[in-house]
């Protein structure tokens, strides 16, 4: 009897300690904090560069020096010319590209889901859209109306996703052919970090369109046009890390698929092997059944044949 009472007391006393061990941040809050950190760093570099001006006594790096896509655009020139760069590219771009590739090979396309500030910007625009819709019913109705009107366009979603490989070929091939960043004028990221240069370039329109589109479709740039995401996703195929669905526990409620910012049919796949997976793990966080959807480490390349 005394033993039972002691046991009850010790359990009650232990409870607060157990609670303290719970993570202070949710999974997605943790990810957004990391994304925000990288975005703030780029904002700091951009402001510092603008304030210092072009003729500063000390060399203040341009935010373009921190873009891995610049590394991809200059890679061919760097290799074939024995260390030369295309304009606007530096060693830092190549190092960042290597970091993106290594991350993809070891941990899937996690750069896109955890680091990329443009991805974060789209996440924020999408989050803001959801926030507004929850509070203003009129906006919610309008968005729902537009979405249902555009529903037939879902058939072009899959072929449209191939567009990013075309953009990749254009950006990399053009830079190799013309020793110039031919994609730069159309790049929404370049337009954003150079926004203080009062010049109207196509990239500004692309940026405007993608922010607007983020209110209706999550991560439109990543889904359809990002050349860096395209190559990172392909490299991610080699990664031993992937989201796996336990069919015996899954009720196919499709909550995971609805949560996926890239619109992947997670609830239909046993292993998520799509190159579009950014490793954001929104699907894992959303899954209501413990153990039904988990991040697992397995032999690289295994399960590719089961793709979607």
């Amino acid at each position, binding site marked *: 009897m005394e033993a039972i009472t002691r046991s009850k007391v010790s359990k009650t006393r232990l409870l607060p300690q157990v609670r303290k061990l719970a*993570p202070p941040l949710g*999974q997605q809050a*943790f*990810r957004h904090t*990391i994304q925000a950190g990288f975005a703030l760093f780029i904002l700091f570099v951009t402001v510092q560069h603008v304030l210092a001006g*072009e*003729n500063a006594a000390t*060399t203040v*790096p*341009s935010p373009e*020096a*921190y873009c891995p896509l610049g590394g991809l655009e200059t890679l061919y020139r760097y290799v074939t*010319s024995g260390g*030369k*760069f295309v*304009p606007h590219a*530096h*060693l*830092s771009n190549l*190092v*960042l590209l*290597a*970091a*993106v590739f*290594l*991350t993809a090979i*070891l*941990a899937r396309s*996690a*750069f896109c889901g*955890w*680091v990329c500030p443009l991805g974060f910007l789209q996440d924020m625009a999408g989050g803001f859209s959801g926030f507004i819709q929850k509070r203003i019913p009129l906006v919610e109705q309008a968005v729902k109306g537009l979405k249902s009107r555009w529903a037939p366009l879902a058939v072009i979603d899959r072929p449209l996703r191939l567009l990013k490989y075309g953009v990749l070929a254009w950006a990399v091939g053009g830079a190799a052919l013309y*020793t*110039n960043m031919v994609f730069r004028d159309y790049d929404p990221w370049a337009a954003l970090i150079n926004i203080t240069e009062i010049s109207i370039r196509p990239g500004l329109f692309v940026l405007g369109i993608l922010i607007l589109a983020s209110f209706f479709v999550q991560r439109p740039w990543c889904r359809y046009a990002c050349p860096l995401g395209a190559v990172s996703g392909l490299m991610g195929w080699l990664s031993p*890390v992937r989201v796996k669905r336990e069919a015996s526990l899954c009720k196919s409620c499709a909550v995971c698929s609805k949560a996926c910012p890239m619109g992947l049919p997670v609830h239909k796949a046993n292993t998520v092997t799509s190159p579009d997976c950014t*490793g954001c*793990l929104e699907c*894992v*966080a959303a899954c209501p059944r413990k153990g039904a959807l*988990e*991040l*697992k*480490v*397995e032999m690289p390349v295994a399960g590719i044949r089961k793709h979607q």
Partner: protein
Amino acid sequence: MRLNVFVYGVLVLAIFMGTIFTARAAGYWSTSGRITSSGEAVTLTGADVDEIKGWMTLGDVAAAYGVPEQEILAAFKLPLETPPAKQLKELESDSFSATSLREWLKERLTR
């Protein structure tokens, strides 16, 4: 093997930042075309037109390649009174850019 989401996040950060810090420690890092990875200022040697960058001045280019400034200005129909201290990117127009200057100089030097 199951992987905790927080461990995965830390792993991503470690791989990404680890690559950058390793490269920096190895001296393989430069964020500006104005300084080399060893921290020395980049100057025009006149040996290769590919050295020309938009932040360089008209006077720098003219001196390094031994081509009069007036000849460059005339070739690109730029105002002849343009000061030599003007950066190339400040002179950019439909007919002039650092790239077009490189191509013109390459041709001019082989004449």
